[in-house]
């Protein structure tokens, strides 16, 4: 049982690292750790079904441990932004104002065909229509179209089309997200000033998201 427990721990860490190294395009719709837990649990649970010689207690121990690791991972990810980045990665902008970031594409080992396929699935057939395309941590591609190509909403009809409605989440759970801050084009001092005007501070802010026009949303911690 001790050997099983240690082997499960080693395999969990090793498989998570392997999935992280494989990159976002291999993940599908799950986070790396969720994928690892799913793969390992399904395999571990299947073996004793096929082989009656194996004691069930080892399987139960292994599955229980994987579930615990997954829960611990999730909680630490909620608390620590650095840990979350390390385990899950961070979203990557691959199209900015109709221009493909080829370096990021290469880094993600994402082909143009993959990108075009993802865009077509969102009824976009011309890259120029895209304001932002972001590869999420689960490998999905989120796309924001330029205002002139987006279906009009009631808000657009009343206020006119808003070109840059891409909001960067610059403060999460009381901590600044430096990457998002850089991408947003604002400084930390400006964020502190916005929070001060909103009658709060960084520590008490759950989320602060902002777009290039300075429109922002502040959600305080409960």
């Amino acid at each position, binding site marked *: *049982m*001790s*050997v*099983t*427990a*240690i*082997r499960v721990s*080693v395999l969990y860490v090793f498989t998570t690292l392997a999935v992280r190294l494989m990159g976002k395009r291999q993940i599908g719709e799950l986070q790396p750790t969720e994928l690892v837990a799913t793969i390992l649990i399904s395999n571990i649970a299947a073996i004793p079904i096929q082989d*009656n*010689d*194996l*004691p069930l*207690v*080892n399987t139960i*121990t292994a599955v*229980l*441990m994987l*579930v*615990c*690791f997954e*829960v*611990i991972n999730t*909680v630490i990810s909620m608390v620590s932004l650095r840990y979350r980045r390390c385990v899950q990665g961070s979203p990557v902008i691959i199209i900015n104002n109709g221009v493909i970031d080829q370096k990021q594409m290469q880094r993600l080992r994402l082909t143009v065909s993959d990108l075009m396929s993802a865009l077509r699935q969102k009824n976009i057939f011309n890259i120029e229509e895209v304001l932002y395309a972001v590869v999420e941590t689960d490998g999905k591609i989120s796309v924001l179209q330029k205002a002139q190509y987006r279906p009009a909403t009631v808000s657009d009809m009343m206020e006119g089309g808003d070109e840059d409605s891409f909001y960067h989440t610059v403060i999460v759970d009381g901590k600044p997200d430096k990457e998002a801050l850089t991408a947003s084009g604002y400084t930390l001092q400006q964020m502190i000033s916005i929070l001060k005007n909103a009658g709060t501070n960084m520590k008490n802010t759950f989320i602060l998201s902002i777009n290039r026009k300075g429109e922002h949303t502040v959600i305080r911690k409960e």
Partner: protein
Amino acid sequence: MKRFVISIIILIVIACAAAGVNHRLQRNVNSICEALQTIIESAPNAAQKELNEQAEEVLRIWKKDAAFLHMVEIHRTLEEAEQTITALPQLTKTVSREELILKCIEAAQQLRNMNRSEQVLSENIF
């Protein structure tokens, strides 16, 4: 946070249970091996009655621990040792002393190997 604490508790319980299982496994295997060793040492000179009693003693110890061993060990690793031990009372009467000693050595060795494969050693983990 509640789930986090529960998960940590479960992992601690698993670690303690694993250590407990290892300790009990080692103790059980040692007691069976000691009983087998008694037969191995006394077989050349012991009277038939004494040998029968020793074989019954091994079987008694085995029966006491068999359920636990089957719960924590791969069944096929136990099978050969189990066959020899459960047949020991008959073997003392039907086979030669040399053959009996050989069977006992084999059974003890299988149990020791099984025990060794459960020890927290780098060769067992990797």
